[in-house]
C-alpha cells in the first residue's frame, strides 16, 4: 500500500458551499440483470420496454417538479448530479438529456457542477456520449468490472472485454475529460493473476478515477442461492484481501490517490458527488428506491419502477420511509461515513454539525481503537490508517447505535 500521506482536505476541488445540494437520478433499467446485483433494477425488455421507461421518466420529471416547487429547496444550488442505476445508457441519450435540461430549469446550478452518468460497455456510442456532454454531463462512470472475458462471463455481465475497450475509446473520442472505471474483485474462481491483468489494463486506459469493489453476496440474489446450494464457492476473504492490497498497490504506483476505501483518483479528480455522501452532505434522490438526506431527515422512495410511477401519477410524493436523525445518530453516521475517507473526519466539524463532543460520546471507543492502532487521532482529526482499511468495519461498528 502506498506510504503516501493522505491528501489534506483543503486540496479538494471546490469545497462545500452553503446551499450546495446534490441530486441523484435513478434509472432502474438494464440490458440484463447480473446474478450478484440486488439494486433496484430490471432488464428493460421485461420491464415493459421503452414505453414503460418513458412513463417512468415522466414520473421522475413530475417528482422533480414537486420537489422543486417545495419552499424547502429555496436557495439550494446543484453542486453535483449523478445519474445511476441500473444502466442509464440503456435508454436513448436524448431522454437523459431532456431530463437534465428540465433539472436545469427547476434548480439553480453551480457553474462548476459535476454531472456524472453511469454507463455500461455495450450501451455506449461516441454519438450518444456527445449528446450527454452537450446536455451538461461532465463525467462518465463506466462499469467495466473486468478485462477478462472469462470473469465477465462468470459475473453474468452482458459485455465483453473488447466492448469495454471500445467504450473507453468512444467516450474519449466524444471529448469526455473525466472518466471512471468500476472494477469488481473477489469473484468465485477469479485468480490474483487475472485481477492483476485487469488492473493493468484499466490503468492503461488512463481513466481519471478508478473504483474497485469487492464482490459482496447479497441476500436474495441468484448468486447467493448458488452459493447456498453449493453450486458456487463462497468468496474467499483472504484472497479478496490480497486482491484489495494488489489494487491499492498498482493504482498508487500509477499515480492514483487512494482517497476512500474503494476509490482512487488522479489529483483533483475525486468524485465530488460521492464525497458529499461521505461528508454527510445534503442530497435529493429522484426515482424509485432513491435516497435523500436534507435538513436532518433521511428518506427513501418506494422501490420498483411501477410502484414508484403509480404513486407519482396519483400526485403523491413517492416516499416510503423517512427518519429524522437525532444528534447522536447523526454523529454515528458522520463517523461511519467520514472515516471511509483517507482524510478522516474533523472533530470540530462533528461538533458543529451534531452539537456533540465526539470524545464525550465515544471517548472510550476512540481510546481503545487508537491503542489497538485501528484509529489515528491527530491535528483534531480522526482517521483510519490505510493499512487497516480492510478491517474498517471493525472500527465503524464501534460507532453504531
Amino acid at each position, binding site marked *: 500500500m502506498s506510504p503516501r500521506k493522505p491528501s489534506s482536505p483543503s486540496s479538494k476541488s471546490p469545497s462545500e458551499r452553503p446551499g450546495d445540494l446534490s441530486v*441523484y437520478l*435513478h434509472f432502474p433499467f438494464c440490458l440484463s440483470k447480473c446474478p450478484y446485483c440486488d*439494486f433496484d433494477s430490471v432488464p428493460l425488455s421485461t420491464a415493459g420496454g421503452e414505453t414503460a421507461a418513458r412513463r417512468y421518466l415522466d414520473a421522475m420529471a413530475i417528482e422533480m417538479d414537486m420537489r422543486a416547487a417545495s419552499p424547502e429547496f429555496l436557495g439550494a444550488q446543484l453542486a453535483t448530479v*449523478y445519474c*445511476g442505476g441500473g444502466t442509464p445508457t440503456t435508454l436513448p441519450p436524448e431522454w437523459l438529456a431532456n431530463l437534465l435540461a428540465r433539472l436545469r430549469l427547476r434548480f439553480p446550478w453551480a457553474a462548476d457542477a459535476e454531472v456524472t452518468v453511469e454507463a455500461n460497455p455495450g450501451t455506449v456510442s461516441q454519438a450518444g456520449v456527445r449528446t450527454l456532454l452537450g446536455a451538461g454531463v461532465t463525467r462518465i462512470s463506466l462499469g467495466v468490472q473486468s478485462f477478462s472475458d472469462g470473469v465477465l462471463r462468470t459475473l453474468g455481465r452482458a459485455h465483453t472485454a473488447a466492448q469495454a475497450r471500445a467504450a473507453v475509446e468512444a467516450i474519449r473520442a466524444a471529448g469526455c475529460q473525466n472518466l471512471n472505471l468500476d472494477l469488481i474483485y473477489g469473484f468465485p474462481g477469479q485468480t490474483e493473476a487475472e485481477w492483476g491483468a485487469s488492473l493493468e489494463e484499466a490503468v492503461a486506459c488512463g481513466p481519471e478515477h478508478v*473504483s474497485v*469493489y*469487492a464482490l*459482496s453476496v447479497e441476500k436474495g440474489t441468484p448468486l447467493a442461492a448458488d452459493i447456498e446450494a453449493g453450486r458456487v464457492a463462497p468468496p474467499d*476473504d*483472504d484472497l*479478496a*484481501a490480497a486482491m*484489495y492490497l494488489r489494487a491499492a498497490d498498482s493504482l498508487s504506483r500509477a499515480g492514483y490517490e487512494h482517497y476512500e*476505501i*474503494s476509490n482512487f483518483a488522479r489529483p483533483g479528480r475525486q468524485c465530488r458527488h460521492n464525497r458529499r*455522501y*461521505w461528508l*454527510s452532505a445534503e*442530497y435529493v*434522490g429522484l426515482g424509485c*428506491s*432513491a*435516497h*435523500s*438526506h436534507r435538513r436532518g431527515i*433521511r428518506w*427513501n422512495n418506494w422501490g420498483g419502477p411501477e410502484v414508484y410511477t403509480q404513486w407519482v401519477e396519483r400526485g403523491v410524493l413517492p416516499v416510503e420511509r423517512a*427518519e429524522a436523525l437525532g444528534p447522536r*445518530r447523526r454523529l*454515528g*453516521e458522520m463517523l*461511519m*461515513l467520514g472515516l*471511509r475517507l483517507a482524510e478522516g473526519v474533523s472533530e470540530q466539524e462533528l461538533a458543529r454539525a451534531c452539537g456533540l463532543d465526539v470524545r464525550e460520546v465515544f471517548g472510550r471507543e476512540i481510546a481503545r481503537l487508537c491503542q*489497538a492502532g*485501528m484509529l489515528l487521532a491527530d491535528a483534531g482529526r480522526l482517521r483510519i490508517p490505510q493499512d487497516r*482499511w*480492510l*478491517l*474498517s*468495519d*471493525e472500527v*465503524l*461498528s*464501534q*460507532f*453504531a*447505535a
Partner: protein
Amino acid sequence: MAIPVQQRTRNFCIIAHIDHGKSTLADRILEYTHTLGEREMREQVLDQMDLERERGITIKASAIRLTYRAQDGQDYVLNLIDTPGHVDFTYEVSRSLAAAEGALLVVDAAQGVEAQTVANAHLALEQGLEIIPVINKIDLPNASPDRTRVEIEEIIGLEADDALLVSAKIGTGVPEVLEAIVQRVPPPAGDPEAPLQALIFDSHFDPHRGIVCYVRVRNGRIAAGTKIQMMATGRRFEVQEVGVFGLGLSRVDELAAGSVGYVIAGIKEIGEARVGDTITDAARPASKPLPGYRPAKPMVFCGIYPSENDDYPLLRSALERLSLNDAALLYEPETSVALGFGFRCGFLGLLHMEIVQERLEREYGLDLVATAPSVAYRVHTTTGEVVEVDSPAKLPPQDRIARIEEPFVRVTIMTPSAYVGPCIELCQDRRGEYESMEHSHTDRVVITYLLPLSEILLEFFDQLKSRSRGYASMDYEVIGYRESDLVKLDVMINGDPVDALSVIVHKSEAQHRGRVLVERLRKALRRQLFEIRIQAALGSRIIASERIAPMRKNVTAKCYGGDVTRKRKLLERQKAGKKRMRQIGKVDVPQEAFLTVLKIAE
C-alpha cells in the same frame, strides 16, 4: 350391612408401559362407577397438568375414591391410586404401590410386554401386591391377546390364563375389571387400634393450606386435632383436617387403618412431608416406621440459564414455585463465564429434567438455555476426602484426585430378535458391560447391560429407537457407584481456560472428545484481529488444538447511492452481535459458540 368398612375397601393401582392405556382405563372405571357426573368427566381426569395430558404420561401421583356396588350386592370403597409412569419416578411408583394391595397391570394387546411393563410389574411384586393382568386395546385390528398372554407369562412370570380382555377405549370388559378388583385384591390388613402408621405416598402444595399429604393409613387412626410426628424428619404438627379424594378433597372425621386419604397439618414446606415418610401419633408413636423410605436423590444435573440475563429473578421464583410441589427438584445458583447467572439443577432422571424445563418455559414464559446433562461423580481425593461433584467446574485439580467413581445403571432393553445386534452394539459403544439376554417364544428378547449413567444421558434412547426402527423399549435402574477411569478435559482459548466448557470424560474417549470440542469451537468462533488458538488439555497435556487465522477483511465496499441507513443497520447488527459475546481473555466468544459445545452431544 354386616361387613365392616375395612373389609369392603380395596386399594389398587394401575401400572403400564407408556401409552398402553392406563389413563383411559382409569377414565372408564370412573365413568362406570358414576364417580363423576358427565359434566365433570374430562378425558384422563387423573392427569391434571396440561403437560401430563399432552404427553400422555403421569408425572404426579394422585388418587380417587370410588364406590362400587358389586355383584354380591355389597357397596365397596375402591381407592384408585394413580402412579407416575416413568422410570425416573421409580421411587415414587414404589411408594404409591406400597399404599395399595393390588395392581392392574395393563398391557397393550398389539404392542405386547414392554420394558416398563416388566419394571413396574417387578416393583409391584416386590411390594407383595396382587397383580391382575389386563390385556387392553383388544379392539385394535393388530391386537394379539394370545401372544400378549404368553409374553406376560414368559417374560414377567405371571400366571395370565385369567388375564382380563379389555378395550378401555370402547368400554369392553370394564365391569369384569371392577369385579376382579373386588374378588382378587385382598382387603387392607392393619389394626385400627394399634399406634398410628400412615405412609405418605405423595403430596402437593396448596397456596392457602400448605402441604396436602396423600396418605395410606396402615395402622391406627388419624383425625383433626391429632398431634403427629414425621418419623424420618422428626418434625411435629397438629392435624387440621383429614379427608378422602372425591373429585377434589372431601373432609371426613377420621381416617382409620386401611384408608387412603389426605392430611392437612399446617406444613409449609414439601421437605417436611417427604414421600415415603411415615406419619405417627406423637403421643403414642409407632415403634418403627414403615419400610422403604429414602430421600429423593437427584441423579442427573444440568445448568439452566435464562436466555436474557434480566430473566434471572423470574427463573429463580419459577424454580421456587415448582419445587414446592416437587421434592426431587434441587437447584442452586451457579455462575458461568459463558452463560451468566443461572442454576445448577438436579433431577431424578432425563424425563424429569425435560418436564421441569418444559414447565419453566411453558408455565412461566421463560426462554432457557440448558447445558448438556451430566451426572454426579464421587471423587476420592488424595487426602482421603470424598466429594460429590455435579459439575466439571467443581472438580478438584487433577493432582488432588485419587480416583473417581460414577453412577452405573442396569439397563433393560426389550426388542424383537431382529434388532438384538444393533442394540448390543449401542451398549458396547457406550462402555456397556453385558449382563444377560433372555429369549421368549414370542420373538421378544430381554437384554440387560450395566452402563455408566452418563452414557445413557445423551441420545441413548433416540439411538435405541432409531437402531431398532422404533421397536425396542428400555428401562433402567441405578445400581450404585463404580470406579471409572475418568479425567477432566479442559478447553483453552489463547491459553485461557474456559471453565464453562470443561467436561468429565472417560480416559479412552478424551482424545476424541477433545478433537470434537476444539473443532466445534473453531467452527463457531468468528475470526478476530489476531490469531486464536483453541486447545483441549488433560491437565497440562494438550491433546487437541486448532487455530483460527486472524481476520483479514471486514469492510463494506460501497455505500450504495446514498443508502446510509442500510449501512448503518449493518454496522448496528455487527455491534449488537459483539455485545452478546463473552470475553475469554481478549477473544470475543459468542453465546452460540458455548451452546454448540454445551448443548449438543456427539
